[in-house]
C-alpha cells in the first residue's frame, strides 16, 4: 500500500467517523435536520460529479431521477407493501438499480448529442418527468401528492435513521468515485473530458464509458430520492423534481471543485447550512431566490474552478516559492 492510498483511507475513515458520530453527539432536532439536508446534497453533488465532473458533460436533469427514486419508493409502499420502520431502507438498492437501468435508453439517446445539446436535452428530461408526475394520476396522485406511511421511530431521534441512510449513500458515492478515479474507467472518462474525438481515435469506447458513469451516478441519485421521500412522507411533483435541487447540487459541485473527489461534499457542507440560514431569514419575502442566485453567480464568476483546485494551486505555488527561496539561499551560501 503506497502513502497516497493510506492517506486516502485515513481521510475517508475520519470523515465517516465524524459523520456517524454527529447525530449521537448533537441531539437538537433542527440541527440534525440540517445535517440530513447537508448529507443529502453532498451525496447528490458527489453523484452528479461522478458523471458530469469526470466526463465534462453537464447534465441538468439528474434531479429527474431523484424524483423517480422518490416516486418509486412511494409507489412501492402503496402497491407492494414494503413494510415499515427500517424495512423500506432495504428496498432502496432495488429502487436505485431499477431507475438507473430504466434511464439507460434515454441516456443513450441524449449522449448521441454533444455538450451543449446534451445539457439542454437533460434539462428537458427534468420537465418531462415532472409532467409525468403530474399526469400519471393513477400512480402518483398528480398534484394532490403521494402520501407515505410515517415510520414509528422514537420521536426524540426521529431524524437519525434518515441521516444515517443519507450518510451511507454519501459514503457509497464517495467510494464509487474513488474506485472510478483509480480505475481504467476513470482514465477513459478523463480522456473523454479532455478530448473526446482523440479518445475515440485512440480506441476508448466512449459511449460505454459514459453510460457506465451515468448508470452509477443515477443509481445513487435515485436512492437518495427514495430516502428523501420516506423522510418527508409526502411527495408532490414540484418538490420531487425541483429545478432548485438540481441547481443546488450543481452549485455545490462547482463551489467545491468539479472533477475532484471531496469537492462536491465540501461544497455541500459549506453551502447547505448557509442556504438553510438564508431560507429562515429571507424565506418569507421571496428574496431568498435572489440571494441564492447572487451566491451562484459570484461563485461562478470569481471561483469557477472551485475551492479544492484553487487551494491546491495556492499550495503548489507557495511550495514552489519556498523551494526557489531555499535554492536562492543555498546558492548565496555557496557563493560566500
Amino acid at each position, binding site marked *: 500500500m503506497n502513502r497516497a492510498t493510506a492517506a486516502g483511507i485515513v481521510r475517508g475513515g475520519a470523515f465517516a467517523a465524524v459523520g456517524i458520530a454527529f447525530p449521537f453527539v448533537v441531539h437538537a432536532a433542527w440541527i440534525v435536520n440540517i445535517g440530513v439536508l447537508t448529507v443529502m446534497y453532498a451525496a447528490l453533488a458527489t453523484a452528479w460529479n461522478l458523471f458530469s465532473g469526470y466526463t465534462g458533460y*453537464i447534465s441538468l436533469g439528474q434531479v429527474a431521477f431523484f424524483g423517480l427514486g422518490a416516486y418509486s419508493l412511494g409507489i412501492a409502499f402503496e402497491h407492494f407493501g414494503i413494510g415499515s420502520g427500517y424495512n423500506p431502507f432495504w428496498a432502496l438498492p432495488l429502487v436505485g438499480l431499477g431507475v438507473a437501468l430504466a434511464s439507460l435508453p434515454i441516456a443513450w439517446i441524449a449522449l448521441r448529442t454533444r455538450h451543449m445539446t446534451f445539457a439542454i*436535452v437533460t434539462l428537458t428530461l427534468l420537465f418531462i418527468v415532472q409532467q409525468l408526475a403530474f399526469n400519471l394520476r393513477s400512480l402518483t396522485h398528480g398534484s394532490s401528492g403521494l402520501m407515505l406511511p410515517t415510520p414509528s421511530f422514537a420521536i426524540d431521534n426521529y431524524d437519525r435513521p434518515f441521516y444515517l441512510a443519507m450518510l451511507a449513500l454519501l459514503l457509497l458515492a464517495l467510494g464509487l468515485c474513488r474506485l472510478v478515479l483509480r480505475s481504467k474507467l476513470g482514465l477513459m472518462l478523463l480522456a473523454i473530458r479532455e478530448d473526446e474525438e482523440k479518445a475515440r481515435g485512440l480506441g476508448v469506447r466512449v459511449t460505454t464509458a459514459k453510460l457506465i458513469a451515468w448508470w452509477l451516478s443515477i443509481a445513487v441519485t435515485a436512492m437518495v430520492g427514495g430516502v428523501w421521500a420516506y423522510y418527508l412522507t409526502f411527495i408532490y411533483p414540484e418538490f420531487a423534481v425541483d429545478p432548485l435541487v438540481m441547481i443546488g447540487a450543481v452549485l455545490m459541485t462547482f463551489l467545491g471543485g468539479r472533477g475532484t473527489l471531496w469537492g462536491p461534499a465540501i461544497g455541500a457542507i459549506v453551502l447547505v447550512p448557509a442556504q438553510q440560514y438564508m431560507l429562515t431569514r429571507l424565506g418569507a419575502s421571496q428574496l431568498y431566490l435572489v440571494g441564492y442566485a447572487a451566491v451562484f453567480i459570484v461563485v461562478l464568476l470569481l471561483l*469557477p474552478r472551485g475551492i479544492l483546485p484553487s487551494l491546491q494551486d495556492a499550495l503548489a505555488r507557495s511550495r514552489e516559492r519556498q523551494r526557489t527561496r531555499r535554492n536562492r539561499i543555498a546558492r548565496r551560501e555557496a557563493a560566500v
Partner: protein
Amino acid sequence: MHGVVQAIILGVLIGGVYALMASGLTLVFGIMRVINVAQGALVILAAYLSYALFTHLHIDPFLSILIVTPAMFVLGVAVQLVFVRSLRGPDASELSLLVTWALALGIEGALSAVFKTTYRSTLPSYTYHSWNVFGYQVGVVRVLGFGASAFLLGVLSLLLTRTRFGRAVRATVQNPTAATLLGVDSNHVQTLSFGIGVSMAAAAGAVYGVIYPFNPGSHYDLISRLLSIVVLGGLGSIGGAVAAALTMGVVESVVAVEISPTWAAFSFFIVLIAFLLVRPQGIFGLRERTL
C-alpha cells in the same frame, strides 16, 4: 376534421410567438455559444412590464411593445457586459448555462417580491373578441400576436441579410476567428446581438401576457419549451427555430384537441426525443463538434 383544422390554426398562431422568443435564443447561441436560460424569465419580466404599463398608464399591450423592447434591449446589453462577457476559457459555454440559470432565478425572485405569485393577465377590451373565418374561430389577440411576431422576425431577417451589422453577425456565426481577422469587432457584435436576443424575448413577452395568464414561476414552463425548440431546430439556426416552434404549436394544439390537454405539453418532448434519435443535430443544425 373541423376540430383538427381549428387546432392547426391556433397552433400556428401560438407557434409564431414562440418562434420569436426562440429566434433570440438561437441567434445568441450561434454568435457566442451561450445558451441564455434566462430567456424565459426575461419573457415573463417583459410580460410584467407590459402588464404594469397597461394597468397603471392604460397603454395598449401591443403598443407597449414599442416601450418594453428598447428597455429590455438595454437590459440585455447590460447582462452581457456584466455576466456573460467575463466568462472565458474552454468551459465558457457550459458556465454561461449556469450563470444565466442563476439569473433566471434572480429575476423570478425579484418578480415574486414585487408582484407576488398570483397569476396575472393583461386584459385589453378586445381580449375575448374573435373573427369567424370560413367557419373557424380566430381570436383577435392571437392574430395580432402572430402578426407582431412575424413582423419582428421579418425585421430581424432584414437586419441580418441587408445591413453591414448583419453581415458582421453572419460572419461571426460562420467563423469567429476569420471574422475578427477581417476587422469585425467581435465584442461589439456579441453585446449587440445579446441585446437583440433579449429584445425578441421582450416583444414576445408583451404578447405572451395577453394570451396566457402568468406568474413569476411561469418561466420554467417557457424555458423548457424554448430549449426543446432550439434543439429541435438545430442550435444556432434561426430558420430551424421558426420551423420547430411552429411544429411545437401545431403538435401541442392537435394533441390537446384529439387526445387530452394534460398531455399536450408532454407530446412535444416526445417529438423532440424521437427526432434526436434519428438526427442528433436537429432539423437544420450542423453537427456539433468540439466547441
